[in-house]
Structure formats: C-alpha cells, structure tokens
C-alpha cells in the first residue's frame, strides 16, 4: 500500500467536512464539519511527518488540536448565546449582516 | 531677506490655533457667557494684523521686477520625494494674496451676528475662517507643485465645514458634500498628473530632491503626449475649481446654501485658485499642450460666460443668482488667460482681483438683505420696493451690481475690456470669433443685475418689509472698502496693472515665442 492513501483519505474527509459546513444548517453540525476538516488536515500532517521522517508535522498537528479546542470552546459559547436569545441553532437565522 | 510670505501664512495659523483652542473646551452656551465672547474680536484682531503684515509685504515687493517671484523662502520638505516648502509670489500672486487677506476681516465683520452667540460655535467658525485664510495665502504663494497640491486639497477641509456646518440653507450638507465630491474628483485627477510629472521630470534629468519645484519643471521638456495628458489632469481640476461649464454644478448649490461670507471667501478668493493655477501652472509647465487645448478652452470659456449669465437671469434665489454670475465672470477670466496675449492675460489677472471685490460686495450686500428678512428668505420674489425703505442698502447693492455688470468707471470694466480686446487679437485660432461671441455677455449681465434690482428694490414695499432697518455702521464699514476699491481701481487701474503687466508679458511671450529657453528662465525666476 502506498502511504499516499492516507493523504487521499484526508482529502476525502476534508471535502466531506467542507460539504457539511456548506449544507447543514444546524450550527453544531456545521461545527462538527469544521472539526472534521481540522482532523483531516491533522491526518495529512501526521502522514507527511511520517513520509519525511520529521516530527515537526506531528507538532503542527498538536498545535492544530490545541487551537481547535480553543475554537470549539469559543464557538460553542457563541452558539449557546445565540440560542439563548433566538431560540434557534440554525445558522440561517443569524443573518443580521444582510446587505 | 525677511520671509514675508511665510509670516503671512503662519500668522493666521497662529490665530486659528489661539482662537480655535477655546472651541475644544467645554461648551459654554449659557447666557452668562453670551456677552463676553472673545472669539470674534480676537479673530478680527488677527486678521487686521495680517493686513498690516500685507502692507509690509507690498512695501518689500519690488514692482520693477513684478514678474519675478519674490518675498519667498525655500526649504527642503520631504526630500525623498522631491517636495520642498517653496513660496514666492509675482505680481499676480501678490494681488491674490492681498485679496484673500483683505476680504477676511470684512467677511468676519459681515458675519458678526450671523452665527448666533454660542461662543464655542463662534470659535470654531472664526478658527475655520482663519485657517482658510492661511491656506489661501499659502496656495497663492506655493512655488512647488507638491506643496500646491497639498494646499489645494487642504483648503477643502475648512471650506467643507464652513459650508456644511455653518451654512444657512436647508440643503447645506448636501451642497457641502457636492462641493467636496467635485473638488476631490478634480484633485484626484490632478494627483495623477502630479505623480506623473514627478517621474517624468526625474526621468528628464531634474534633481530628484527638487523635482517638484516649478522653476525646475518649467525648463524640462516632457514630451508632447505626456504633456497633454498632464495638462488635462491639471486643467480639469482647475476648471472644476474655477468653475467652468460643464463642471460648475456644485457652485450654485454652494452659493445658495452657504452663508454669504463663506461664499465670498469661497467663490471670490478660493476659486481663483483654479484660474490662478491655469495661469501659473498649466501654461508655464505645459506650454505646448496649452496651445493645443486653447481653442477648445476658449470655446468653453465663452460658453461659460453666456451660460452663467443666462442661468443667472433665470434664477429665483438671490444667492444662487450671484453664484451664477461668477460662472459667467470666471468664463471671462479663463478666456483672457488662454488668449496668450499680454493684454488678455493682464486683463484676466486684474479681473481675478476685481471679481473678488465686486462679487464679494454683491454677496455680502445680498447677505445683509437676506439677514433683514423676517424669514431670512433668499427668494427674490420675497422682496419688493425696498429702495424707499433701505436706501443705503439699495445704493450699495446697485453699485455692487453695476460693478458686476462692468460699468465703465469701475475696475471691473477695465479688466473686462482688456480681456475682450485681448481675446479679439488672441493667438489661438478662432479666438477673435469667440471674443465677439462673448460680447453679448455684457447685455445679459445688465439684464440679470437690473432685473434683480428692479424686483427687489422697486415697486411698492412688500408687506412686512416696510420697516426694515437700513445698513448699520458695521455693515457700511464692510461695504465701503469694496466699493472704494472698485472705484479707485477703475479710475487708476495702473495701481494694480503695475503688478500684473510684467507677469502677463512673460507668460504671453513664453507661450507664443518659438524658442522658449530664455523665456522659460524668466518664467521660473525666483528672487
């Protein structure tokens, strides 16, 4: 098996994550799509680390995880706040910036 | 040598700072502060001291070399881009500086009770006026294209606030924005030309640290195509400022919505930057392009003359009407500049001064009239039969109006006849025909002035207007110098022509002589 299969898998997962972001309306699921994309990149990082024999890739994946954790905390807090005021978790209901 | 111009520029700035700093404090609008406002007396004092300084400058000016740029200073400003602080005036510049400096105290006096009694508002107002004065003096003395451009745009700031913040018409904010948009649009085109000028000049071998100095730029040849493009860049900006048909649309709105004092400063002085720029930048920097464009410009100028006059006749708003008359007069000025004859150019230079006095008098007198109306109406139809009620006001208005229609014996006539006669023998093709075409302007001028006078001052006094007070002492003090100036310059125009003849000769020679090396050196000469 070629190690690039991992990369292809990462690409496919990334695309699915992106599609989730575009198609789902529930903010939490959208967030999950973001998480999926981040995880897919992590997989690519890990694979490339292995390919090049350099752990820096893993370090970056680690950073991605930390930043993702922070992002999830804040993002979910925002969702909760919005849900409190608007009784809805749909991203389409938050369109006050309509031009 | 004493740096007269720098002092003349700096002093109003000091004044604006001193008076304006009070405006930053807390608002004192209570009745207790009403009687102790220092803003107006202080500003008047500053502007009068400026007049004294102007006298000194005139004394120091060498009239035997009126074509040279004198009284100036030059320091590197931003050497990295070749910008210098370079000031200096020839006779024409000096007259326009004088016009700015003389009109400011009159405008301050005329606007004495116009802006209410709120001390903070008054401080802002007079500080803006003084700031505008400094910019105007500076822009007429700038001998560096970059400095000129910066001042050209900087003037918009006080002007914008004076129109939009202190105007009296309902549409003042809109008018201010319109003014700003037109001016900025022109400024933008000019900026492109300024930048191009720098690079082309450096490319042509001018010292990059002085590449914006007019005297350096005059002597380089920039190539026909580039010169024409840059000419257009400058010219359009100046035509908007001047204002010239068809880029005049902002002017009537401003005239109708600003206070008469602001209009005076704006139209009688500030707009001269347009014609002054044509005379001192467009022509010397781009002689070939000027010759190329002259037939077209002359045509537009004459159209402006007739167009402005016709529109003035059709106006129902007194202040807008005065604004339109200026469109007509600026047409004459531009016509004279682009004749490339000593007579026409000298006439235009003289006319820039005279128009300031005449239209200033008309604006301010119209302002006095409007301020008397119970509803401050600017509609001509709101007035009637006032000659018997306010005879002095009527007389002053009539004299100002006669100056506007260039009655012989008044200064405006001398300049107008110089322009017309000069244009008849002008160098560009077709200028004789256009000069003839401009002559009906004098008839139209008679119509708009006398029609207005007839509607406002004759007939039976309108109801409610039969007890208006006549001109007060303060207002007479404002009107008297303008009328006296028009009369004296009309009988002894030599007083002013001394200053404009030599610059005009040089300009005309520079533009019509084929081998302009010597002429170029003369054009750019700074003392």
């Amino acid at each position: 098996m070629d190690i690039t299969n991992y990369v292809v898998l990462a690409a496919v997962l990334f695309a699915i994550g992106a599609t989730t972001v575009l198609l789902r309306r529930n903010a939490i699921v959208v967030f999950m799509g973001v998480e999926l994309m981040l995880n897919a990149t992590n997989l690519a990082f890990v694979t490339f680390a292995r390919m090049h024999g350099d752990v820096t890739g893993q370090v970056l994946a680690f950073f991605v995880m930390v930043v993702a954790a922070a992002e999830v905390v804040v993002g979910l807090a925002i969702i909760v706040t919005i849900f409190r005021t608007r009784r809805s978790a749909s991203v389409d209901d938050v369109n006050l910036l309509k031009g | 040598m004493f740096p007269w111009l720098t002092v003349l520029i700096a002093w109003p700035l000091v004044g604006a700072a001193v008076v304006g700093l009070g405006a930053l404090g807390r608002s004192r609008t209570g009745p207790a502060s009403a009687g102790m406002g220092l803003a107006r007396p202080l500003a008047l004092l500053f502007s009068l001291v400026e007049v004294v300084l102007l006298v000194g400058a005139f004394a120091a000016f060498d009239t035997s070399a009126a074509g040279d740029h004198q009284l100036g200073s030059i320091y590197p400003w931003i050497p990295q881009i070749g910008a210098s602080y370079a000031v200096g005036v020839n006779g024409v510049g000096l007259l326009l500086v004088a016009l700015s400096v003389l009109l400011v105290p009159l405008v301050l006096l005329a606007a004495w009770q116009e802006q209410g009694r709120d001390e903070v508002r008054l401080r802002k107002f007079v500080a803006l006026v003084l700031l505008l004065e400094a910019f105007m003096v500076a822009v007429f003395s700038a001998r560096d294209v970059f400095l000129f451009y910066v001042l050209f745009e900087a003037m918009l700031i006080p002007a914008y606030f004076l129109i939009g913040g202190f105007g009296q018409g309902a549409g003042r904010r809109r008018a201010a924005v319109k003014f700003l948009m037109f001016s900025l649009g022109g400024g933008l085109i000019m900026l492109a030309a300024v930048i191009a000028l720098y690079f082309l000049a450096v490319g042509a071998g001018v010292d990059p640290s002085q590449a914006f100095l007019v005297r350096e730029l005059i002597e380089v040849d920039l190539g026909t195509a580039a010169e024409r493009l840059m000419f257009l860049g400058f010219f359009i900006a100046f035509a908007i400022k001047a204002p010239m048909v068809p880029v005049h649309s902002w002017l009537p709105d401003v005239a109708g919505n600003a206070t008469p004092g602001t209009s005076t400063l704006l139209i009688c002085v500030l707009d001269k930057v347009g014609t002054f720029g044509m005379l001192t930048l467009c022509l010397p920097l781009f002689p070939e392009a000027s010759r190329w464009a002259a037939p077209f410009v002359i045509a537009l100028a004459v159209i402006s003359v007739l167009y402005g006059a016709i529109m003035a006749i059709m106006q129902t708003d007194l202040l807008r009407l005065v604004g339109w008359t200026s469109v007509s007069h600026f047409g004459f000025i531009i016509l004279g500049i682009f004749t490339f004859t000593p007579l026409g150019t000298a006439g235009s230079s003289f006319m820039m001064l005279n128009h300031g006095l005449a239209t200033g008098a008309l604006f301010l007198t119209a302002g006095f009239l409007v301020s008397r109306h119970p509803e401050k109406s600017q509609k001509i139809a709101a007035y009637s039969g006032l000659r018997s009620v306010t005879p002095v006001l009527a007389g002053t208005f009539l004299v100002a109006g006669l100056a506007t229609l260039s009655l012989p014996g008044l200064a405006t006539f001398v300049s107008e006849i110089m322009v017309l006669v000069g244009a008849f023998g002008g160098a560009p093709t077709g200028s004789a025909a256009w000069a003839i075409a401009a002559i009906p302007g004098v008839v139209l001028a008679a119509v708009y002035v006398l029609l207005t006078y007839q509607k406002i001052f004759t007939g039976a006094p309108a109801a409610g207007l039969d007890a208006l007070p006549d001109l007060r002492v303060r207002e007479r003090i404002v009107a008297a110098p303008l009328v006296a100036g028009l009369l004296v310059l009309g009988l002894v125009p030599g007083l002013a022509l001394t200053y404009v003849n030599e610059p005009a000769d040089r300009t005309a020679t520079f533009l019509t002589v084929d081998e302009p090396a010597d002429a170029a050196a003369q054009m750019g000469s700074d003392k």
Partner: protein
Amino acid sequence: MNDVIGLAPWLVGFPLIGAAILLLGGKATDRWGHWLGVLASAASAVVGFILMSRMIGQVPEERAIDHHLWTWLSAGGLDVDLGLRLDPLSMTFVMLVTFVGTLIHVYSVAYMDHDPHRRRFFGYLNLFVAAMLTLVLADSYLLLFVGWEGVGLASYLLIGFWDTGRPSARENAVAAKKAFVMNRIGDMGLIAAMALMFSAVGSVSFADVLPAAAGDGAEGISPAIATAIGLCLLLAACGKSAQFPLQAWLGDAMAGPTPVSALIHAATMVTAGVYLMVRSGPILEAAPTAQLVVVIVGAVTLLFGAVVGTAKDDIKKALAASTMSQIGYMMLAAGLGPAGYAFAIFHLLTHGFFKAGLFLGAGSVMHAMGDQTDMRRFGGLSRFLPITWITMGLGWLAILGIPPFSGFWSKDGIIEAAFMPVEGQPWRAWVFGSVAVLGAAITAFYMTRLFFMTFGGRRPRWTENQHPHEGSPLMWWPLVFLGVGSAALGAVLGIGGTFTTWLEPVVGHAEHHEPVLPVPVIITTTLVVVVLGALIAFRMYAVQLVPEEAPRGSVLTRAARRDLYQDAANETLVMKPAFGVARLVQVGDRDVVDRGWSVLPQAVSWFGAVFRRAQSGYVRSYAAGMAGGVLVIAVVAWLVVGLGGAQ
C-alpha cells in the same frame, strides 16, 4: 489757451464732486442740496465759457488741444490716457450741455420742489452732466465709453427716479431697465469696435485711430475693417440715440421726471450717437457701405418717429417720438459725409434748445394740470399759461423750420445735403431728399397738432378741479432763455456759415456740390409742404373739436399709437426666442448637466445595490463563496503550475 487748459478737468470735476456730495452726503444735504447741484452745473458752464472764449481767440488750426491728465490704462500694448480733447466739436457740446443743463437744473429746483428726494434727483443730474461731459471731452473711444455708460447709468437712475411708492413705480422701473439694456445692446457695438480698432491700429485713442482711418498713418485701416468698425459704431449710436431698430426704449423713458426728458432724452444724451458718428467721420468716410447704412437708419427713424408722433396723445410721448425723428435727421446728415457733419451738429444744437424748451414747456403744462399728460384733456391753455404758450410757440416754429427761427437754418441744411448727388448712385439724392422733405411735412403736422391740442381750441377739455397757472419764476425763466435760443440761435450761427466754419477744423472741409434740385426750389418745396402739414393739423385740432376720448382711428393711426408695433415685434422676434433659449439652458442645466454629473454617484450606488445581493447574511453562502474561490484558485494553480511544471 494753454494758460486756462488746466481748468478743463473742472468741467467734469465740478458736477462730479457735486454728485458725490449729494449722493453720499445723506439727509444732511437735503436743505441746500439742490442749490449745490445748480452751482456745480453753473460752475461747469462758467469754465466752459472761459475755455470757449479762449478757443474762439485761437486761429482755427490751433483750436484742437489734447489735454493729458494721467495714464489710465497701460497693459499689453494697449495704452489709454485719461485725457481730454478740446476742439470746436467737443466745445460745442460742452456749451450745449452746461448751458441747457444749468437751465434745466434751475427749472428742476421748482419743478421738483415737492419731491422728498429732490437732493437725490440733483445728485443724479450732476452725475449725468459729469458723464456727458466726459463723453464729449474724451480723447479716446475707451474714455468716451466711460461717459457713454455714465450717461446711460444716469439716464437709468433718472427714468426710474420714481420707482417706489407710486402706482406707476413698477412701470417706471421697467422703463429704466429697458433703456439701460437696449443701450447695452448698442454698447456691444462699441466694445466690438474698440476690439477691432486695437487689433487694426493698436490703439483706441482718437489721435491714433482717426488718422489711420483717413489713411494718414503709416498703416491705414482696410476698407473692410473700416466698414466693420463703422457698423459697430452705428450699432452703439442706434442704442444711445434711439435709432431704428433700437428705438423702443425712448418712449418708455418718458416715465422719468420731465426735466430729465428735456435734458437727457431730448437735448443731450440721445444725441450722443450723432456725436459718435461725427467724431468717427474719418472711419465712416473710409467705409461707404457703413455710411449708406447710417443714412438708411437715419431716414427710417426719421419717418418712424414722425409717424408715431402723429398718433400719440401723451404730450411727452409725442415729443419723444419727435426727438427720435429729429435725431433721425441728424443721423441721416452724419451719414452724408463732411457735407452733412456740420449740419448734423448744427441741428443737434438748435434741436437741443428748442426741444428742451418744448419739453420744459410740456413740464410746465403738466405742472399746471396736475401731472396730466393726455393732450386730449388739455386745450385752451394759452390764456392761462402765456409764457409757456409763447416759449413753446417759438419752439414749435423752430422745429417746423419756419424761417427765421433756428430750426430752419439747421434742418434746411440737412435737407439740402440730402439732395446732394452721390457719385454712381443717383437714386440716393432723390430718395433721401424726398424722405427728408416728407419728414418735415409730417413733423409740421404732429407738432402743430401737439401745439393746438394743448393751447388752442375754444373749449377746454380739462378734468375737474383744474386751476392752471404759471409756475414760479425759476420755472419760466429757463423757458424764456430756451425760447430765445429757439428763435435766434439758428440765425446767429447759421447766417454766413459761422457754425460750419467753426466746425471745419474737426470735420474737414466739404467739397461743395450742387444739389440735384436748385436750392431755392428745395427751400420753397419744403416750406410749402410744412405749411400744408401745419394747416391740415390746424384744421383738425384747432378748428374742429378734439374728442376727449381718442377715436378708434385708421389702421395706420392705431399702429402709430402702438409705436408701429415695435414692442410687439421686439417681444415676438427677440424676447420670446431669447426666453425660449434661456428656458432651454435652464432645463438643460438641470436635466442634462446636473443630472449628468449625478450619474456618477448613481452608478456607484447602483453597483452597490447589485453587489449588495451577494451580502445575503447567510454564513453558508459566504462559506460557499470562500470554498468556491479556493477551489477556483486551486484549479487554476494546478492548471498553471501542476500540469505545466510537475510533469
């Protein structure tokens, strides 16, 4: 006369100072202002007499003096001195203006006695005298133009003197404006003429232009340029002298006080056009076409004014029409070359006296009749106003050209000159000669009509409560002076050609030609038709009863009453099209220019409106945009780099 030449500026100076004091002095000068005005005018007249007497003492060749005051305007090759030219022509005018002017000042003291603004009136009168003297004394066209417009301004102010507070105030103001604007139309010609002169000769002073036109200078003026200048000057003269087609303002100008009509709109200002023509004689002589046009204009106006005069019932308007007609005579003469110049000026002088006398007499009548001007409400006044009757009678005989009254000497000269043959154009002598004679006949008719409608008739047709009486001596003494002038001036100056000789240094010597008819025949014919015209009028207006209401009249009468439809014609041919153009410009400015510029901001906001739709507010749309963008960039990058480079 160099010892007294220093006085010359005071000719203008005295009235100018008087005007300045009266107009700026305010109410403080109300009490004695009118006498100051009289004094200023009289002082000017005295100076005029001194200069005149000294000038007569000179040999004719030395009578012309240019007195330089200061350099007025010097720029770009145009050098104009502020200088006075004293020569027989200008001095003739100085005498006329100051003498008649002073008389009218005196008359006005009484005439304007009850007007609260008498001081202002005298200020304007002084201003007029100063301007008129500037006009005639100027040594260049440019300075002449100053006086030219100055008299226009004074005329404007005086026509509109009663422009507030009266029922007719608005009409007076409109009449004043009309006069000024129509004058300005003429002024265009003067400006254009000066532009032509400067481009052809490089100067606008008489001393340079006139010799150049006569071909004396190194470079003369080509006939084409001379024709253009001549026609431009004629336009100016038409405006100022109410000649066809710019004649419409003069009738309305009668809205001013009667002394003004006498001084400005009869004796002096309106004749300035004739002065301009005579002064510019060399230019006209170099341009026969222009000369012909001048003659035609004169002839047309002569008949026009005469016809209008026959139908007017307003005494002042009838006199105004008569003035127009008489100036037509002068203009006709001015177009006839040196032979006519002297008679043009001579007639101008005598006309100044008798027409001023007639106007002042009319003023006296109006004064007596409570400002009534309708002649159909006069009648039988000779018993009540004997002095006025006699002095106006002298003026009447003078204008009719009955020998030996002054009008005969001057008008007959013009008629004779009109019959002079012109080489190559034999029709001219006959046509213009006949027109002049016909004009004389009509003049006789309408003046006799005027005279007898006012003074004659057995039955007064007054409105109620009229007690006509002579005014104060201040009013009738001037009448007497003018009456004497009307009677005798012509004979004094005309017999033996005194006046013609006097003017010869200025206008040049006229080659004497025999008229196409023998002189006695011309004189006799003229007298016969004049008497005929007078008799018809006498029969219609003295013997028969004059109805108090004007009868409907024939087509011609109705047309003449309406000034031969001059106002309607101006309205239709000039005003309406001009107003149409103005409306067009106005609409164009609003809808094309202003709206055109607002297209720019509108375009910006239109683009904004279009692209605003992209701002749906939906996060997912934005995300799709981003992702799509990334995809596009990736594909492009792949196509450019990946396919090209990696393989």
